[in-house]
C-alpha cells in the first residue's frame, strides 16, 4: 500500500525516529521497546548513531552483536522483513509436503515452499541485468538474517594456503592477512556459535573447536568405503548445527534434516536467531526492517561517511540516517551496488572507488554434480535416517594442483537416503526402471503403470545418492558488476549489470569433478544417472551465481591502487567506512565462506572499537 504525496511531505517534518519506532518489530524484547519509546518521549533519542550497519546476514549480524556487546549504539538496517523461525507465523519446519498445495514445489521460492529464503534469483520489482554473451544469477534473501536462514551450514575454515594462492600459483590474488591473523577469531566463532566436526590434522582443512559429529547414514558409509578404496578421502562434515546444547538460549538438534527451513530450536546457525536476537537484547541495537539503503552519504569537506539514506519499503519514504561509522554487509552484490551508487563530486566513481576496483573480481564457487542409483540399496529396511540438515560426511580437497591442469581445488558434498518425499518424487522413473531387473529377474521396458510401477517406487526408495563438487575459481578482473546505465528498480535505485564468464581453469576443474564422480559411483557399485556431462555443456559447470557463493567485489589488499579495503576491511579512501561481508574477500578457497565472514566481521568490529578508543576514528 502506498501513501499519497501529501502524506509523504507530512512525514518529512516528523522526526525520522517515528518511522523507526513503527518498524521496530513487536518481536523485539519489551525492555528494549520500552526504553526506546521512553527516550523518544523524553525527546533525547540519539540523532546520530555510533554505527549504522547495512544488512543483517552473517557479516552484519556478527558486527551488530560484537559492537552492541561492547556498548556501541547501533542501527541495523535490513531490506527484508522480520523473521523468527520459532514464531508459528514463520515456521515451516516439521510440516508435511501435503500441507503445501504444490507439495513444496519451487514456484514462489527457488528451493521450495518450505525453504527459509524469502526472495531468490528473481525478485519482483528488483531486477538486475547481464551483459550480452555473459551470465550471472543473483540470489537475494530479503529477510532478517538474509541467506543464513536457509544455507547449508557448511562451516569450514580457510587453510593457510587459501590466503596465498597467488604466491603459490601465479594467478589470482593473495590476501593482505594470513591464517594466523584470523584463526583466533575462527576459534571464538566456533565456541560462540557451535560447529560439529572431527579433528583430522589436515593442513588444508584446519581443525577447530568441534561438537561431536553425527554418525554417517547408510549411504554415507557406502560412499566412504567406495571412495576410500580409490584414494578419495571422506571425513565427517563440519556444520554449524548443535549436536549438543551450548547455552540456554538455543536448543540441541533434534535431527529432522530441515536446517534449510530454519530451526525453531535455534539449533543451527542463522544470523537472525543466533546473533541479531542476542544483540537486540543488549538494548544497544535498533533494528529497522524494510529499509532499502540507496546511498552512503559523505561530508564533501572531510570526505568521511556521514550515514545512509534508505527507502522505507512500506511507505516509500526516503529516510536519512546519521552515523559516525558506516558498515556495509548488504551482500557481495548489494554492497558493491551501494558504493557505486554513492557518487558525489568528491567520489565521482562511487564511494571508496579511487582504485576503480569496486565491482570487479566477483567470483562464485564452481559447482557440478551427478547422481546415481545404488542397486544394493533396493528394498531397504525402513527407519528414520533424517539426521541433521545436510551431509554427515564430505570429501575435502585431496590432490596437488601442481600435477593437474587447473590451479584450484574443490570439495565434494554428498546426499541420498530415505528422505521425506517432496514435489518431484518419482519424476522420470521411465528412464530408470528399464535398467533394473524385476523381482523375478526379468527385464521390462522403462515406464509402465499399475501395481508393478507401485512396486518399483517402493523398491527404489532410498536407493539414490548424489554428489556435488564445490570449487575455488580464479578471480578475474574481467568478471565484474557495474551500474546499469538505463535500468532502475522499483525504488528508483539504479541496478547492477553483471558481466561474468567462466575461465578455462574452472571448466577443467568441472571435468575433473565429473571423472571423480563416476569413479566414486562405480567404486560403490552404483549406476550413474543421465549422460555424463561433457565439453558441450562445460562438464555440467553451474552457471555463475547458481551456487550462491559470490565474493570479491570490494576486495581488501595492501595496495590502495588495486584494492578497496585495507587488511581490516576499512576503506582506503574513507576511514569510517567498513565492509564486513564477503565482498571484502580477494578469493574464496574451496571452502564455503560463511565461517570466514563471521570471523572477519568479528575482527573488523573489534578493530573498529580499538580505533575509536584510540581516537583514530
Amino acid at each position, binding site marked *: 500500500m502506498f501513501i499519497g504525496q501529501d502524506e509523504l511531505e507530512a512525514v518529512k517534518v*516528523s522526526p525520522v525516529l517515528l518511522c523507526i519506532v513503527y518498524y521496530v518489530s513487536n518481536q523485539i524484547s519489551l525492555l528494549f521497546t520500552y526504553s526506546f519509546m521512553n527516550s523518544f518521549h523524553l525527546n533525547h533519542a540519539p540523532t546520530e548513531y555510533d554505527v549504522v550497519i547495512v544488512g543483517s546476514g552473517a557479516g552484519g549480524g556478527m558486527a551488530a552483536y560484537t559492537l552492541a556487546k561492547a556498548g556501541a549504539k547501533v542501527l541495523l538496517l535490513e531490506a527484508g522483513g522480520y523473521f523468527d523461525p520459532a514464531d508459528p507465523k514463520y515456521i515451516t519446519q516439521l510440516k508435511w509436503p*501435503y500441507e503445501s498445495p504444490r507439495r513444496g514445489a519451487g514456484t514462489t521460492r527457488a528451493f521450495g515452499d518450505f525453504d527459509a529464503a524469502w526472495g531468490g534469483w528473481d525478485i519482483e520489482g528488483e531486477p538486475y541485468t547481464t551483459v550480452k554473451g555473459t551470465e550471472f544469477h543473483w540470489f537475494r534473501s530479503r529477510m532478517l538474517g538474509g541467506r543464513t536462514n536457509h544455507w547449508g551450514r557448511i562451516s569450514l575454515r580457510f587453510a593457510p594456503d587459501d590466503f596465498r594462492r597467488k604466491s603459490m600459483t601465479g594467478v589470482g590474488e593473495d590476501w593482505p592477512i594470513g591464517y594466523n591473523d584470523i584463526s583466533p577469531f575462527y576459534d571464538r566463532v566456533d565456541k560462540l556459535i557451535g560447529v560439529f566436526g572431527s579433528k583430522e590434522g589436515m593442513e588444508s582443512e584446519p581443525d577447530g573447536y568441534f561438537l561431536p559429529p553425527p554418525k554417517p547414514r547408510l549411504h554415507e558409509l557406502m560412499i566412504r568405503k567406495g571412495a576410500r578404496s580409490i584414494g578419495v578421502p571422506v571425513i565427517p562434515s563440519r556444520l554449524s548445527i548443535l549436536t549438543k546444547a551450548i547455552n540456554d538460549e538455543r536448543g540441541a538438534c533434534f535431527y529432522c534434516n530441515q536446517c534449510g527451513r530454519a530451526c525453531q530450536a535455534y539449533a543451527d546457525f542463522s544470523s537472525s536467531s543466533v546473533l541479531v536476537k542476542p544483540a537486540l537484547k543488549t538494548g544497544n541495537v535498533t533494528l529497522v526492517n524494510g529499509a532499502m539503503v540507496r546511498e552512503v552519504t559523505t561530508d564533501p569537506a572531510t570526505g568521511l561517511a556521514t550515514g545512509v539514506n534508505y527507502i522505507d519499503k512500506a511507505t516509500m519514504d526516503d529516510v536519512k540516517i546519521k552515523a559516525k561509522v558506516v558498515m556495509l554487509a548488504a551482500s557481495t552484490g548489494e554492497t558493491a551496488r551501494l558504493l557505486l551508487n554513492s557518487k558525489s563530486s568528491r567520489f565521482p566513481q562511487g564511494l571508496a572507488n579511487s582504485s576503480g576496483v569496486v565491482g570487479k573480481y566477483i567470483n562464485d564457487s564452481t559447482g557440478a554434480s551427478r547422481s546415481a542409483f545404488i542397486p544394493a540399496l533396493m528394498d531397504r529396511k525402513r527407519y528414520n535416517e533424517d539426521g541433521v540438515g545436510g551431509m554427515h560426511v564430505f570429501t575435502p580437497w585431496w590432490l596437488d594442483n601442481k600435477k593437474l591442469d587447473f590451479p584450484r581445488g574443490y570439495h565434494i558434498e554428498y546426499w541420498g537416503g530415505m528422505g521425506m*518425499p517432496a514435489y518431484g*518424487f518419482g519424476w522420470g522413473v*521411465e528412464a530408470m526402471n528399464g535398467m533394473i531387473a524385476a523381482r523375478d529377474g526379468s527385464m521390462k521396458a522403462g515406464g509402465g503403470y499399475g501395481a508393478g510401477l507401485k512396486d518399483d517406487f517402493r523398491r527404489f*526408495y532410498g536407493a539414490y545418492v548424489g554428489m556435488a563438487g564445490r570449487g575455488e575459481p580464479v578471480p578475474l578482473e574481467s568478471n565484474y558488476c557495474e551500474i546499469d546505465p538505463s535500468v532502475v528498480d522499483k525504488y528508483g535505485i539504479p541496478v547492477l549489470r553483471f558481466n561474468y564468464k567462466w575461465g578455462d581453469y574452472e571448466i577443467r576443474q568441472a571435468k575433473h569433478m565429473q571423472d571423480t564422480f563416476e569413479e566414486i559411483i562405480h567404486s560403490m557399485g552404483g549406476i550413474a544417472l543421465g549422460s555424463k556431462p561433457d565439453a558441450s555443456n562445460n562438464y555440467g559447470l553451474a552457471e555463475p551465481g547458481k551456487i550462491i557463493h559470490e565474493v570479491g567485489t570490494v576486495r581488501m589488499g595492501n595496495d590502495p591502487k588495486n584494492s578497496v579495503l585495507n587488511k581490516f576491511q576499512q576503506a582506503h579512501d574513507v576511514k569510517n567506512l567498513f565492509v564486513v561481508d564477503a565482498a571484502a574477500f580477494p578469493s574464496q578457497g574451496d571452502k564455503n565462506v560463511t565461517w570466514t565472514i563471521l570471523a572477519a566481521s568479528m575482527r573488523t568490529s573489534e578493530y573498529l572499537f580499538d580505533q575509536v578508543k584510540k581516537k583514530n576514528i
Partner: protein
Amino acid sequence: MKRRDTLKAISLTGFGLAVTPVEAAVPAPPTPKPLKIPGGRQKFEAERDAKLMGEKFFTPHELQTVTVLSDIIIPADAKSGSASQAGVPAFIEFMMKDQPGNQTPMRGGLRWIDNTSKRLFGNDFVACTKAQQIELVDQIAYPKLAKTGMTQGASFFSMMRNLTASGFYTSKMGIEDIGYVGNVPNQWNGVPNDVLKQYGLAYEEREIAGYE
C-alpha cells in the same frame, strides 16, 4: 502511537484530504477481503494461493479423464489406496494453475487421448471399456517402445505419471506406503546394527567410542 495512526492523524488535520483531479481520475480499488496468512507463508504467497484455489482449470470431462488415468497409474493394492483416493487429481488441477507451462501439454494431451480412443474405439477415453483403456495405455506407457503416431501420447503419459507419482507419494497415504518414518524430533544414533550387518559395514572406533 503507531506510525500508521500518526499518519492518519496528520492527514485528518489538513494534509491529505484534498482530492485532486488526478486522484479522482483513478478510482480507489475495492478494499480486499482480509486474508488469513497461513504460518510459514509470505503475504504475496498466501494471496496467490488463495487466488489460484478460487480458479478452475479442468472441465468436468477433463477432470474425469485425469482421475481415470491417475488410477491406472497408481491403483489401489494390498498396501495402499489409489491415486484419486489420495487426492491426486486435485493436486494436478492446482499444478496447472500454479505452473501454467503445464496447461497446454496437459490439455492437449487429454485431447490427444480422446482423439486417439475415438479413432481406435469410437469413444472418448473415459467411455471406453477398461480393456480398451488399457489397450491404449499399453501403447503409450513405455516411451522407448512407442510406435509412430503414439510418441506424443507417450510424452503425455510420462507427464501424467510424473504428476501422479509426485502427488501420490507426497500425500499422507503415499508417505505411509513408501515407508518414510521421519519428520519427527528424534535422536540419531546411527544405522541400526542389523542393517550394518546386512551390508557388511561397521562404524569406526571413534564413531563408536565418541569423539574427544
